[in-house]
């Protein structure tokens, strides 16, 4: 992370490390036991906070939209949506890309930052990964329900059949199947592997027999043996090394859905990088959306500090700039290519009947975030970040809307120009997935350790090993 020089303004906040002028990653004064108790307590406590039940019920309630929507969808067909010819793809694909994008932050945090030895990631990677998995669940839903005959969706997978017919591997959609399924499975095992030692902890700290058995099973009998730790470490490093190219490839493949097609506005080489950047952009926004209320609700300010928010905001600034560059390139190429198709597409995208969508996108994705995120004050302003994270995710949703809809509804043959109008079912199902996401996430924070305890321990000063077995200095001495 870019370390700033000493701050000009006097620092009063104890959370600020006087040497770097950065916020501390963990509040001073924590011991192995305190962090363990703090985190394990949330899971093992016998009296669940009412707010949790409330959130769970709300999530479940909203998720009913998805249930009802899909039921009707299967009964009637995709015609209940706004999709049509020429706009044969609509909300389903937009939401798919949006959710997958959100997922990316989790993998990025857990994998790429791990490779870069960014230890501050430790406090947020667990629930970022959880977020990834739930986002992928929501995303994975859409390609399946958006096909005209969902009950035959399994034809997209390669399996020996009596028809001697196989998937068509030249199609980006077939690539999606591989990319997304791989992404989902790798994320899950990475997530689970990360939790094994913590399950051990929970097993040992649990008092209720049921919890003991439950976490005992999950922990596979983890006992913290050093040889295990070494293999474990190397395995997680390998997975991180694998997830990094994976996460980059997934959104690249998603972007191929468009880049490989012949449409002006889709047929663009800039897509892979700017899709990945956009994904991380929205992903971090979502992490912030989740992190802020959680640290407040469970009083985790000590472990998820302003430093984390600050860093995440910086990442958003960076990726946001890449995305902005992407938009810029599209416009530039429309002019530079001197291709009538490109030029008309861009003109229509800006000033056509659906121009409003493009300008919303520019406002929410570029104008607001990229002007404000430069200020450290705003970067560590919790309330502002919280609002901004919503703005950015709206913007990213509109980015996909603009790409999918405004490229489709007016393309090569003017005779077949049309328009696109979403129906209530489109919205119901979209909102429904938001509910499902919330629901799953609430379950997660209640029953699984949302912050990796073992990794937090590693960040504590007590981990320093002094030769000769001299008693390690206590934290209090150190800070004195």
């Amino acid at each position, binding site marked *: 992370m870019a370390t700033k020089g000493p701050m000009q303004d006097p620092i009063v906040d104890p959370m600020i490390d006087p040497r770097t002028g950065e916020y501390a990653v963990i509040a001073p004064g924590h011991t192995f036991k305190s962090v363990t108790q703090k985190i394990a307590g949330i899971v093992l406590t016998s009296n669940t906070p009412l707010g949790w039940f409330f959130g769970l019920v709300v999530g479940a309630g909203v998720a009913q939209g998805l249930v009802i929507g899909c039921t009707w969808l299967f009964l009637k067909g*995709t015609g209940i949506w706004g999709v049509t010819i*020429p706009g044969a793809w609509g909300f389903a694909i937009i939401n798919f890309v949006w959710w997958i994008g959100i997922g990316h932050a989790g993998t990025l945090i857990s994998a790429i930052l791990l490779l870069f030895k960014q230890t501050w990631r430790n406090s947020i990677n667990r629930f970022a990964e959880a977020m990834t998995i739930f986002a992928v669940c929501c995303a994975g839903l859409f390609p399946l329900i958006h096909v*005209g005959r969902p009950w035959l969706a399994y034809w997209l997978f390669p*399996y020996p059949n009596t028809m001697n017919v196989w998937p068509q591997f030249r199609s980006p*959609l077939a690539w999606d199947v591989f990319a997304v399924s791989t992404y989902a499975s790798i994320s899950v095992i990475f997530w689970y592997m990360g939790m094994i030692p913590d399950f051990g902890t929970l097993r040992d700290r649990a008092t209720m027999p049921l919890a003991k058995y439950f976490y005992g099973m999950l922990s596979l009998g983890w006992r913290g043996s050093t040889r295990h730790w070494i293999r474990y470490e190397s395995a997680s490093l390998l997975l991180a090394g694998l997830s990094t190219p994976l996460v980059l490839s997934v959104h690249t493949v998603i972007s191929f859905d468009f880049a490989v097609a012949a449409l002006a506005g889709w047929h663009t080489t800039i897509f892979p990088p700017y899709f990945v950047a956009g994904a991380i952009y929205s992903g971090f926004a979502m992490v912030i959306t989740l992190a802020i209320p959680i640290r407040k609700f469970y009083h985790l300010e000590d472990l998820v500090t302003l430093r984390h928010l600050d860093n995440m905001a910086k990442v958003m600034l960076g990726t946001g700039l890449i995305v902005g560059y992407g938009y810029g390139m599209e416009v530039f190429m429309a002019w530079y290519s001197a291709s009538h198709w490109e030029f008309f597409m861009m003109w229509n995208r800006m000033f056509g009947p659906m121009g409003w969508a493009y300008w919303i996108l520019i406002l929410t994705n570029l104008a607001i975030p990229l002007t404000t995120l430069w200020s450290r004050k705003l970067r560590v302003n919790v309330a502002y970040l919280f609002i901004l994270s919503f703005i950015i995710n709206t913007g990213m949703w509109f980015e996909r809307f603009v790409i999918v809809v405004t490229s489709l509804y007016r393309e090569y*043959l*003017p*005779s077949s120009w049309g328009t696109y109008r979403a129906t209530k079912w489109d919205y119901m199902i979209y909102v429904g997935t938001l509910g499902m996401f919330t629901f799953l996430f609430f379950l997660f924070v209640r029953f699984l350790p949302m912050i990796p305890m073992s990794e937090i321990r590693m960040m504590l000063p007590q981990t320093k090993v002094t030769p000769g077995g001299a008693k390690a200095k206590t934290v209090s001495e150190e800070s004195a």
Partner: protein
Amino acid sequence: MMKTTGNNTTGIGTDETMAEMKAPAAQPVVVTQISPAKMTLAEVRAKLDGKTGRRFWKNLDELADTPEFHELMREEFPRQSGANEWVDSVSRRGFLKVMGASLTLAGLAGCTKQPDEPIYPYIKQPEDLVLGKPMYFATAYPFPTGAIPVLVKADSFRPIKVDGNPEHPMSKGKSDTFTQATLLDLYDPDRSQHVLHRGETASWGDFQQAFSTAAKKTNSGQGIYFLSETITSPSLAAQWKQVQAAYPQARLVQWEPVNQDASRAASKAAFGSYTDAQYKLEEADVILSLDADFLGGIAHPGFLPLAAGYAERHRYEAGKTMNRMYVVETMPTVTGFKAEHRLALKPSEIATFATALANGAAPQGASGDTQKFFAALLSDLKASGGKCVVIPGEQASPAVHAAAYALNSSLGAVGKTVIYTETVNPMPSEQVADLRSLVGDMNAGKVQWLVILGVNPIYSAPSDLHFQDAFAKIPVTVHLGSHVDETGAIANWHINKAHYLESWSDARAYDGTISIIQPMIDPLYGGKSAHDVLQALLENSQISAYGVVVANAKTYIKGDFAAGWRKALHDGWVEGTAFTAKAAGAGKSAIASFPTTASSGLEVSFRPDPSIYDGRFANVGWMQELPKQVTNLSWDNAAIMSMGTMAELKLEESDPVKVSFNGREFIAPALMVPGHPDGVITAHLGFGRGVLAGRVGQGVGFDAYQIRRSDAPLFVAGVTAVKVPGTYELCITKVHNIEHRGSFAQHDLEKPQYDTDGVYSLAGHEAMERSIIRYATVEEVKKNPNFAHEHGASGTLIDKVGYSPQGETVPKENSFFPNAWSYEKTDPSTLKIQNAWGMAIDLNSCIGCNACIVSCYAENNIPVVGREQVKVGRNMQWLRIDTYFEGDLHAPKAHFQPMACQHCENAGCEQVCPVGATVHTPEGLNTMVYNRCVGTRYCSNNCPYKVRRFNFLLYSQYDTESLKFMNNPDVSVRSRGVMEKCSYCVQRIEAVKIVADKENREIRDGEIVTACQQACPTSAITFGNINDKASKVAKLKAEERDYQVLADLAFRPRTTYTAGVINPNPELA
């Protein structure tokens, strides 16, 4: 041939009919008597009695489970049982039901575990019947403007396709939208199914009884009146003569809301007797149409020969002088837009213009443009030296007709390009006048029996006659109609009319040739025809329509009758019955007798609808959904007006506007149509009907009959039109996209349109910019025959900068895999070069008449989706006529371009399908495998031509049995969630392939004809093997004017277009 029972409901003797089977392959054979089925059609009818609409068919479903019904079906539709198509359809519905189950184990097999399917073999099989081989029978579709000779394809005695009769001298195998649509009309589930007496089901016998006794009471026929549709049947006329002989006082009035009164009146004045005109456009260098939409459809007499003749002379071919067409019209029609020069005038002005033209003096007070047009036109006509023709429109005023007669004779066209003959109608009359007198008699109480034959006056009679009130005064009213419509519902008697495909008759075509109308199928509901009704009055009242026709045929079939009759039925027409020119010749000028009066104020012009005519196709889904010519309006009609009028009335498109004329009014949404003259609203007739119109027709559009008066049936002046609150969204399948594109956004345009008030069509302009439409003038093409691929022609923009020359084919070498696939392989076993299918479409010949689309509907089991679905752009036509408006929308050029799947060799759709549901065949077809499709719709996104259609919902008819019978058994019925598109009629290709392979020969050129090609009245579409250099299609593709649409995308479409050539008058250019 459809004999189900020994004692059949109609008098069709099996042996009578089988003989006339037109079987290209086998000789006609006589069917041995089939032993009677357990349940007769009559019993089915009894069972279905009283059931209407949905419940009706539910009931039929239940019925379908009883063995008797299967038994019946076996005999009605042997193929159904033989091939189990019948139970198939059920099992396919089952297939949907078990879609959940298909997820289970059996589903892995890619198909469901099918239920036991029974087979119902014949008791005795008709010897000529080969299950799965269609049979063809000749008959004719009687239409007021002249019968259309047709050849009907019957699958196991079940009509499944209506096409032109190739052996007929007039139609030469061509057909039109209406004729194609009559098939669905036959299977319309809402057809009336019983004789009704005061709403109660009665029998035909009862009526015969009541009618004849009543007639006998009035020994002279006093008070017996017939109100008939226009008669084109000599036999019916003969029958009427007999009736008159028996009952001299009986009266027969012919009347239809859309009629030819104008020409009748004018011809009477000019020739002393009613006269029809026949034009020979293949002879004409200059054509002037005075409000005559003779390329629009059979609403204009002789559409087929006229269109063919026009196209013949409009093709740009070596050693041929192209014709030049001028059109003066109100409502923009395909004729108007095909014309080199089009002048838009109000109806009243047209008369003035025509008269002025005839007098050779410029019209007073006409605008500069009009004057210029007038002068140029007149000189051009004169210069042509008689090789010209003036065609007046049937819906133009008598003055126009009189002027046309005068012009044709003064220009010396008579005898060269036009001849005057006796009328197709054996009993011509001026219908509105007759109707008025009839209503007079009705009010005077003179009418005891009013027998209405096929018309629906309660709905369509001129509003000022108050027909309904007069109707109420009549003791006994009889209505013979295919539906229990507005008239049928309130008549004492309703007799369900047999469809022409169900009945015997005869009719004259445009050229006078008589065709025998023979039944293709036993009347589904035991319907009756006008012959039966008239016969009821005669002493031998039991004679069937067949008997009547045979009796009368003896008068016009020369030579040995038995042989002649058989030949007539086989060929579909009777030799030597065509009209010859009348002695009267050119006739005298009758202009004086029709003074033209300059009218003032807003006018409303009434026109038969291009899709549903006067309303008779209101319940035919195909026609309602068919995007209308020029406007592309699907479902509904509208108050069609110009931008100027719209501004004047302070209207936006789809604002409801109330049009009122002395006291009566109708409300319709406003619709701007480019090229429409100011100060006039065009209203299409036949819409705005209630529930009686049927499940399709009810509540569609707006009833313009409301303000149509008997004294002004063609147009009225001085109407008021005001906006009423609310909005009504019309569904137009192609918007005009009037949109201002700022000048800064035009730097890449070749023809920048610094258009500030948005009066040009963005779509149209883009079509030119993208070189989708290419044309040139004769001069230009003479200068540069290769104009379609080079710079310079006024109507062609190519060679723009960009990643490749805009609109030009990318050289094969540019590809990474130029020779990945060869389509010129030689078959190892035959050592012959393989077939490669391709299509060429001549944009010069295409007149945008829509016949191809309806033909495609019938051939490929295309579903009707309904107004709301079309509104969101989900119409299912595999083929569409793209209409582009070029230039200022006040007086634009328009271009028609049939657009269907282009069968690209490097098809984008194939590359992106994740399950390989659309793939390329060795012969270059882009096949869509419905049962493999999972419906990702990616293919549609990647198709630049947007010709793929998706079953967003369950569109196909799985419940309506009568519609199932119409399905083409060789084409899958697509269920929901499946993509579909034009297949080049692969079922026809495969059928021919099998025949050819059996005979170990190559497929001959022209042996495979696609449905659209078959219907096209101007032969604009050519299909064939492009590897066979001798084939027509290969030759066309070799022409310089041949070009690919969006060629620069390098998809290598197999369908190519021949760039248009126009022949404008330099003076007006």
